[in-house]
């Protein structure tokens, strides 16, 4: 079973349940790949000993009644893991060892999975290329010298390179969907409140949502089923019955109405993306869905709104890093204030400092109404756009990103052009609605491209079904040559 790491999560779970392969064999196969995959820099911390001992415990007394029996999983290093350092990709937390476990990872472990390692990400999840991490750039396995997207870049890279059978990321403005699109994988941002935020290093609390990143849509349904659900420890968690997404998954999408928003046809978008969008429309139509032209008139304001709301919340959330209770402390400074200032100056990277300054500025006296309140009002209008169209359609189809993966360093010195990466993904975060990126084709350089499906609040099942149908008809084939093993 040398090709076990090529299999989907669902197939691996089936093989374990049928006793055709042992958890320890699966775990060893992935550990082997991680060891050979160092060039990708997708792991910050390896938990091989933990994974091996947990796999042996599983094999000695297997429980097949769980969703993820005996499966090793690497997770984004933004999820706190009890006793395993959690860095958020920052020097500030380089040596931080949580004394608690995030709700989501707790749920995954209670479904039979165990930790394989912690995955690289942009510092505090602020970035779209995984170039802001204190632990270095992550490389896209699809092509050398290319970014994997961000902020969940380590997650996307490790998944596409077969270093983990599935993974989880977080998505504040596109941080799951954009890297999924860049690496030819599936990534879903759930409805705000579906997955608990407890124990996740906070970036922008009204936008942050964790979600699955997987090789197939079936895997995505399985992971979402395992990680979602009510949590009394998160005051924004939605209290509702748990869904059986994987059991209900179907390719039957007959009669569903799919909106095509004209505002997502942006200037300078490559022809290939336009063609990909057409391909998606055609597939859904052939499968029995009805395609309807719609308008989301405030789309162009989503990104400017996001770049007020997200930094404002970040500046408040990151105020906690003061060098006192945990994390890095500067040795410079003669009094408390200087200690704070030097700690935060040396502990945070450039992009994080930039966003804290933007956030502090828009919340400061005299500017609060003009920027922050204004942005919250426009956010209301953006949400209303979606409320209006969802009286007419069941889901919306758009490209996931305005371009394919770009070269490392290409956009690093131009914040605005980097921010524009998230132009299609940010609206769903502002409106708190679910969205999934599905790989559908390649560009002329053979880089993968994804399409995004945006759904109604708690419409994850409909999105998964549409994605499942699109996946089965798109003939997308991931053809990665493992150049990093040479």
């Amino acid at each position, binding site marked *: 079973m040398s090709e076990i790491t090529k299999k989907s999560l669902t197939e691996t779970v089936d093989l374990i349940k049928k006793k055709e392969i042992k958890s320890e064999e699966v775990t060893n196969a992935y550990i082997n790949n991680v060891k050979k995959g160092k060039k990708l820099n997708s792991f910050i911390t390896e938990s091989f000993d933990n994974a091996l001992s947990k796999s042996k415990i599983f094999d000695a007394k297997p429980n097949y009644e769980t969703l993820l029996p005996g499966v090793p999983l690497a997770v984004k290093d933004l999820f706190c893991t009890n006793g395993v350092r959690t860095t958020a990709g920052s020097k500030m937390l380089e040596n931080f*060892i949580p004394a608690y476990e995030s709700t989501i990872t707790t749920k995954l472990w209670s479904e039979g999975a165990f930790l394989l390692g912690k995955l690289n990400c942009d510092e505090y999840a602020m970035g779209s290329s995984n170039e802001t991490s204190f632990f270095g750039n992550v490389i896209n396995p699809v092509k050398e010298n290319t970014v994997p997207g961000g902020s969940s870049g380590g997650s996307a890279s490790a998944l596409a390179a077969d270093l983990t059978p599935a993974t989880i990321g977080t998505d504040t403005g596109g941080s799951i969907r954009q890297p999924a699109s860049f690496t030819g994988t599936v990534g879903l941002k759930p409805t705000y409140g579906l997955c608990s935020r407890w124990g996740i290093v906070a970036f922008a609390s009204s936008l942050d949502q964790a979600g699955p990143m997987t090789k197939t849509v079936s895997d995505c349904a399985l992971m979402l089923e395992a990680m979602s659900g009510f949590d009394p420890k998160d005051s*924004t968690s939605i209290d509702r019955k748990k869904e059986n997404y994987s059991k209900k998954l179907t390719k039957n999408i007959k009669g569903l109405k799919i909106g095509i928003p004209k505002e997502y046809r942006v200037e300078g978008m490559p022809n290939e993306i336009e063609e990909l969008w057409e391909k998606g429309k055609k597939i859904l139509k052939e499968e029995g869905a009805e395609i309807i032209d719609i308008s989301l008139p405030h789309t162009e304001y989503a990104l400017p709104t996001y770049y007020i709301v997200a930094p404002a919340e970040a500046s408040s959330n990151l105020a906690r890093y003061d060098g*006192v*209770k945990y994390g890095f402390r500067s040795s410079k400074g003669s009094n408390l204030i200087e200690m704070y200032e030097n700690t935060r100056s040396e502990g945070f990277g450039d992009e994080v400092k930039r966003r804290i*300054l933007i956030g502090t500025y828009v919340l400061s006296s005299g500017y609060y109404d003009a920027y922050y309140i*204004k942005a919250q009002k426009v956010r209301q209008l953006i949400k209303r756009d979606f409320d209006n169209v969802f009286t007419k359609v069941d889901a919306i189809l758009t490209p996931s990103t305005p371009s394919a993966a770009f070269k490392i360093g290409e956009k690093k010195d131009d914040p*605005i052009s980097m921010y524009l990466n998230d132009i299609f993904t940010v609206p769903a975060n502002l409106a708190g609605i679910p969205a999934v990126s599905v790989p559908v084709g390649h560009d002329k350089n053979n880089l993968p491209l994804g399409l995004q499906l945006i759904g109604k609040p708690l419409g994850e099942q409909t999105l998964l079904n549409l994605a499942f149908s699109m996946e089965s008809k798109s003939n997308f084939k991931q053809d990665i040559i493992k150049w990093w093993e040479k």
Partner: protein
Amino acid sequence: MSIDKDKIKHTAKLARISIDKNKIESLSKDLSNIFNFIEKLSKINTDKVNPLTSILDHSLRTREDKVTDGGIRDKILENSPNKNEEFFIVPKVIE
């Protein structure tokens, strides 16, 4: 809108971040560009729109005021960069 050097210094003070003198210039340029981009919002009339403060239908839950956790002083102190057996240690505050 331009974010000049004085505004950068003032905001950095509020955010408790010391900024390297050599970096103020480029930071001022970056932030000015970002604010020019953000300015787009002033084009929309929002006089009759309520700010969106939460996208959830329910208001934030409260819980009964009872202890659910605690007694983990040592665990909490473990991650501190400077502590003794009972306290976090910081530079002297009171002369």
